[in-house]
């Protein structure tokens, strides 16, 4: 049988065999619109009152430090800006996150990263603050980098973590190529390099080892530290965990802030 004729027959069979599903098209659009409206409402972060503000000494110290920094560093723009920062650095926040299609209210706890001198200045120190879901994750220090890892790690599965490292002397632009080369050397297929505003403003580099459920996905977010350096935030998980750990990392990262002390 002629190949062109076969091609034609396959094309025609595929169209004819799937024609009937097109009747769902209009109704499906209505559902999508409905979902988008719901998502829009759910994206609103709810900040609860300071019920347990003084419940933990560590948090007290950390918050006192950060609030002091915030107050010291951000008084110039005025009272409104200060209120915003004060709210930002509450010791705990409750957010509503979308996980695998379900809404989940989650308490996040403030964690502050190790500061580093900013550029050539001895007076300025740059660090970061992030809110962590401490019910599910713990923060470890691995090779000088802060790593957020699941408290319950499954066996025989690729590692899951979100790692934050500050590189004091390289901008995100300088780091992109290094990371791309590193990913290639490690066997990742590069998927995307893009400028993003969400969950943080910065450069996103993504890659994976394939399309199977347990293939590894890595996402690097390169965030400018505003003093010639960068924060390199690496998310590492496997494809099937994208909507679980991947989504949880996304929501935690939305709460990432660069802090400059001494301005």
């Amino acid at each position, binding site marked *: *049988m002629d190949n062109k004729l076969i091609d034609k*027959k*396959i094309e025609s069979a595929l169209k004819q065999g799937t024609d009937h*599903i*097109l009747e769902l*098209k209009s109704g*499906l659009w209505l559902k999508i619109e409905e*979902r*988008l409206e719901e998502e829009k409402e759910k994206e609103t972060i709810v900040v609860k009152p300071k019920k347990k503000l003084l419940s933990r000494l560590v948090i007290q110290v950390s918050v006192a430090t950060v609030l002091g920094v915030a107050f010291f560093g951000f008084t110039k723009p005025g009272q409104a800006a200060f209120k915003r920062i004060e709210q930002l650095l509450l010791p705990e926040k409750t957010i509503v996150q979308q996980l695998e299609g379900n809404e989940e209210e989650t308490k996040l706890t403030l964690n502050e990263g190790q500061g580093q001198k900013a550029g050539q200045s001895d007076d300025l120190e740059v660090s970061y603050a992030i809110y962590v879901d401490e019910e599910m994750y713990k923060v470890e220090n691995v090779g000088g980098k802060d790593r957020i890892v699941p408290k319950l790690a499954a066996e025989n599965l690729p590692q899951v973590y979100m790692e934050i490292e500050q590189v004091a002397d390289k901008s995100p632009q300088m780091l992109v190529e290094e990371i791309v080369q590193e990913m290639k050397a490690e066997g990742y297929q590069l998927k995307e390099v893009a400028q993003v505003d969400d969950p943080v403003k910065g450069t996103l580099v993504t890659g994976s080892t394939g*399309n199977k459920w347990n293939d590894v996905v890595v996402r690097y977010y390169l965030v400018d530290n505003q003093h010639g350096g960068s924060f390199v935030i690496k998310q590492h998980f496997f494809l099937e965990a994208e909507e679980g750990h991947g989504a949880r990392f996304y929501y935690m990262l939305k709460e990432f802030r660069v802090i400059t002390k001494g301005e």
Partner: protein
Amino acid sequence: MEQELIKRIKLGDRKAFADLYNLYADYALRLALTITKEMADAADAVQETFIRVYKNINTFDLQKNFKPWFYRILINECNRILKKKNKVVLLDNYFEQKESSVSSQKDNYDFEESERLYNALCQLNEEIRIPLTLKYLIGFSEKEIAEILGINLNTLKSRLYKGRERLKKFLSQNKEKEGKEWITS
């Protein structure tokens, strides 16, 4: 036109998103159906895909081709749904499992040739079925399909060749009313 739509969606233009839906929904539904084989699952996959596209559109690089990005999300979404229903079968085992079910369905081929061919295609191993669908239904080039599926171009060519040969054999055997072992050889 497509890039323009995406620029507008990035700015939050819901009308542009509706236009994109109209542009992509038909083929998305068709492809999802050939992967999941069930209307409800296909509709769920397409719905989730469009929601993901809308939510993640800011991560899409306008310098790149949107179509492969979109279909990659759709295929992943189909697989996620199948996995939730425990219907994802390891590719190596898929063929053996299908062998046993084919014989029970053979007697029903009292339809038009096209319908029989579609059924035959649906019973192919998914590693062959998905590339065939992307090529013949949506019209992707082989290079684009390899990119979407993350596989080597030669591997893809070999899968497409195998798929077409199997369907060709099915058609010849069917014509001769001897279509007993068309799919597993």
